[in-house]
């Protein structure tokens, strides 16, 4: 029952140079409060692992706009011309990973696997520098786990222990990154009493969540 902290306090724990996993798909399911606070705090040299960088002014795009990101590991940057500009200008390093592979690499990081074998990317530029492993004569790429210092998770509801559920397509990478970071910060649309999310409805169990962040509430 110790998990709720203020957003500013949460962001104060994130140092320059941190490796962040951030939930969301084109901004949907991205924890905007945490992202905005990172921008306000001006955290620099971040590595961001996420599906995409959304669009300028939206979700992770705000971190790109503010030039806070040194490296992006994502499946897609095509909707954000500023990410592409920074990449071409050499200001931001971009590692492109097929979306399903990105999901499995993050999951492997959180689930204690040493890697996974996928058919995706065999024979393409994605295979460069990677080990190909044959199973019964079929080639697969060995893709390695990803982990982060912090996961910034967006949930629908969080209870005071830290159990989380998610809404529709805002779920996306959130439950995966919640398993794969040293510190997990969750921004929930609603914080509810323990027991309100029934055991079968919990998607992320409380034990992996370090803190729920409260929305900034102004009184008076």
């Amino acid at each position: 029952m110790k998990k709720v902290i203020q957003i500013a306090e949460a962001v104060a724990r994130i140092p320059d140079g941190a490796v962040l996993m951030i939930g969301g798909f084109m901004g949907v399911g991205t924890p905007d409060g945490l992202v905005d606070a990172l921008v306000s705090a001006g955290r620099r040299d971040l590595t961001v692992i996420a599906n995409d960088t959304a669009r300028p002014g939206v979700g992770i795009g705000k971190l790109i706009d503010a030039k806070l990101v040194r490296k992006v590991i994502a499946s897609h940057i095509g909707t954000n011309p500023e990410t592409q500009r920074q990449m071409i200008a050499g200001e931001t390093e971009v590692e492109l990973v097929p979306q399903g592979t990105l999901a499995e690499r993050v999951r492997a990081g959180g689930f204690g696997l040493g890697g996974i074998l996928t058919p995706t990317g065999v024979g393409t530029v994605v295979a460069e520098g990677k080990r190909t492993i044959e199973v019964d004569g079929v080639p697969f790429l060995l893709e390695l786990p990803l982990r982060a210092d912090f996961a910034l998770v967006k949930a629908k509801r969080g209870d005071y222990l830290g159990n989380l559920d998610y809404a529709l397509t805002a779920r996306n990478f959130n439950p995966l990154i919640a398993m794969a970071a040293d510190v997990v910060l969750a921004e929930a649309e609603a914080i509810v009493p323990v027991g309100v999310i029934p055991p079968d409805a919990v998607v992320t169990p409380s034990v992996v969540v370090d803190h729920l962040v409260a929305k900034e509430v102004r009184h008076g």
Partner: protein
Amino acid sequence: MDEKTLIAKRVALELRDGNLVNLGIGLPTLVARYLAPEVNVFFQSENGIVGMTALADEGLVNADLTDAGGSPISAVAGAAAFDSAVSFGLIRGGHLDVTVLGGLQVDQEGRLANWMVPGKMVPGMGGAMDLVSGAKRVIVAMTHTAKGTPKIVKRCGLPLTSVRRVDLVVTELAVIEPTAAGLVLREVAPGVTVAQVQAATEAELIVPEHVATMAVAG
């Protein structure tokens, strides 16, 4: 009928009742409009839902229910939401019956390039590589040429999306089936000749005795 509509209507005929289908962003999305009423398919969106429908109507938008392009959608009764690992488990695990994707190039071996133009456009592959590697049936829906340059080529100059041979290529001029023997011309669009298709195609086409006229959905 404009060329995109023609392509979408022809592709619509490839979908079967009960299929699980993923439509790429852009032209492929149009296919959903031309399904016959008796053909019920489930549309998957790789951001994590089975049972999506067309764009949400004004006033019915929910910020947490979008397609892979980030546009608001609706969902049918019986839709299911899931995380990105499950979404690609469906795609990679052979559960997806059909994916319809746009293309930049298809080569003589039936291999697709559709995710980058080095030095010009590096959007990232998103889900395309998994979709082409994993779907039971891959249909490429694209214009036959780009500003007059053939997109069906001997060998892809652009980086491949997958080494897997796609199953069908539908353009505004023709329906082409990549096979182990090469690209077989199955249909030509109404009013288009085999010679015209070949002229607009860099790759060699195998032309069977009978080439049908392209049928299109109602």
